[in-house]
């Protein structure tokens, strides 16, 4: 949209003039994940982050995989964000699954050709697995989980479970490598500008690829996941979370019912996952998923430091807990001291259905 373009120009103008003094040109490689023929939302957030590094940053997206879904994903990539100027596609059986060993080598190969100033990925399990390995091959310290980009080499990232914010300056040689927190770089839904020309799609030359001794030493066996129709936890507008107080997997279904009613994603505390109420990929916290929804409702969650780390940036936090002294009430916008076994049924009855 035109207005967002103007806003962007205003926002980044002072930064770009400073960059001009230190860098000749900016070029960013974004490592993207794709699934079912389209680019994951978190990878598009990484493009948005690339955008805030500075003006006149040429952004290339790197995709790897095999088969027809790769082609589809490349086409989606070419038009999914107006600032992508090039889509690089690496097609090989080595990339059928996102293994770190071939990916790190691929980044090395692509960087040798493109000489990028920045390499970025979203800090999900994909980016966290791959970026540090690729960085070590290039003798570079990467910056994890960046929440703010203040300059082309100055970044803010949370440390100590988000209880402190650390501003770091990268002083090493290029590329500067980052993983970014996708909830901090959300993409306006209108950013897929229909007027903009789709980016060019180019194949990566993999002719001398297999020389790395680590490729082939790891083999993918399977992925076990539970299919769900609920929105993705990382991107949901509303998240409903249950803790240990739910007492059983059976009772946890109340949380799921409430989530269905609100069109929300379901989250859980470590205690609920450890007790086997829900699978591990629903854990919210320092070591689980980081969420920043518009509404976060926590039921029977005490509010340990490690859990707060994963949801403190939610716009509105609601806590329901029997214990009035639970630390969760210190971060909640609306707290209700009460028994969740009474409160949830009442909410189910009285809340309006999702639109």
């Amino acid at each position: 949209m035109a207005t967002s373009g103007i806003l962007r120009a205003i926002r980044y103008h002072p930064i770009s003039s400073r960059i001009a003094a230190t860098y000749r040109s900016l070029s960013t490689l974004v490592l993207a994940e794709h699934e079912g023929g389209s680019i994951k939302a978190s990878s598009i957030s990484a493009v948005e982050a690339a955008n805030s590094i500075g003006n006149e940053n040429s952004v290339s997206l790197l995709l790897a995989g095999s088969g027809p879904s790769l082609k589809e994903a490349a086409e989606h990539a070419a038009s999914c964000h107006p600032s992508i100027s090039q889509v690089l596609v690496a097609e090989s059986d080595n990339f059928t699954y996102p293994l770190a060993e071939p990916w790190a080598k691929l980044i090395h190969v692509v960087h040798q050709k493109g000489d990028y100033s920045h390499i970025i990925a979203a800090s999900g399990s994909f980016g966290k697995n791959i970026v540090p390995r690729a960085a070590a091959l290039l003798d570079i310290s990467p910056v994890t989980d960046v929440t703010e980009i203040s300059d082309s080499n100055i970044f803010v990232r949370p440390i100590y479970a988000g209880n402190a914010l650390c501003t770091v300056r990268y002083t090493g040689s290029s590329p500067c490598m980052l993983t970014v927190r996708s909830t901090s770089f959300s993409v306006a839904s209108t950013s897929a500008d229909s007027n903009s020309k789709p980016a060019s799609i180019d194949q990566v030359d993999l002719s001398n690829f297999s020389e790395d001794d680590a490729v082939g030493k790891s083999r993918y066996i399977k992925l076990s996941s539970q299919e769900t129709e609920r929105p993705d936890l990382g991107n949901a507008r509303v998240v409903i979370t249950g803790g240990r107080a739910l007492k059983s997997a059976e009772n946890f279904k109340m949380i799921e019912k409430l989530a269905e009613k609100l069109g929300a994603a379901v989250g859980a505390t470590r205690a609920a996952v450890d007790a086997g109420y829900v699978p591990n990929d629903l854990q919210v916290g320092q070591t689980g998923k980081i969420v920043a929804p518009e509404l976060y409702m926590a039921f029977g969650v005490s509010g340990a430091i490690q859990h707060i780390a994963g949801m403190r940036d939610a716009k509105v936090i609601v806590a329901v807990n029997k214990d009035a002294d639970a630390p969760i009430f210190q971060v909640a916008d609306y707290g209700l001291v009460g028994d969740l076994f009474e409160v949830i049924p009442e909410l189910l009855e009285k809340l309006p259905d999702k639109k």
Partner: protein
Amino acid sequence: MKIMVAIKRVIDYAVKIRVKPDKSGVETNNVKMSMNPFCEIALEEALRIKESGLASEVIAVSMGPTQVVDTIRTGLAMGADRAIHVDYPGTLYPLSVAKILKALVEIEKPGLIFLGKQAIDDDCNQTGQMIAGLLKWPQGTFASKVVLDKEKQTAVVDREVDGGLETLCLDLPAVITADLRLNQPRYATLPNIMKAKSKVIKKLTPEDLKVEIKSDIEVVKVTEPPKRKAGVLVSSVDELIDKLKNEARVV
């Protein structure tokens, strides 16, 4: 086969940290320090593998100032056979840690390296991946289950990934980083704490290992995160729904 485990001394996970008034960092003086929880899990897994007869020796390794020896003693009391302390007074970033580990691997020649998936102070989640990259070994990060096959010289690792659990098969030697659900670490018993006092801790410096410590990251400042404005307690579900509808406008 030897197993090497890297352990880190950090501020205890239950401590509410304080940012220094001069914004140079987080107060670590007179604060309770412990072994990083993920390192405990990594060490526990190595000990279990040794106890099942698949490894001959567990070597605990830690880096940092003199006080790191306390953490190393904890690791020895849990059951590590011996330890190496790489003495360095300053800040070590993951890349330097990985380079030191690589130098130690070349001396000790372990068949497996275990690390925690991240340290709860810097929250980097990098060291394991970096050491694997430097050694050109395969990596199994965020592991929640590890099964070794001695004959085939492989490790089958279940990994906690965004969409669920991914299973990989890695050729040994390999690097594995532990997630929370890999195991429940044991407590060191008093007799084992006493025994640990006679176990050997070899002291080295980065110079001994010919590793040059340089950093390409500079901390500009450390600040407190913005505080959330105080919330309200509501007295009923009706009041809560009313607030969400009319005040916060989120439902």
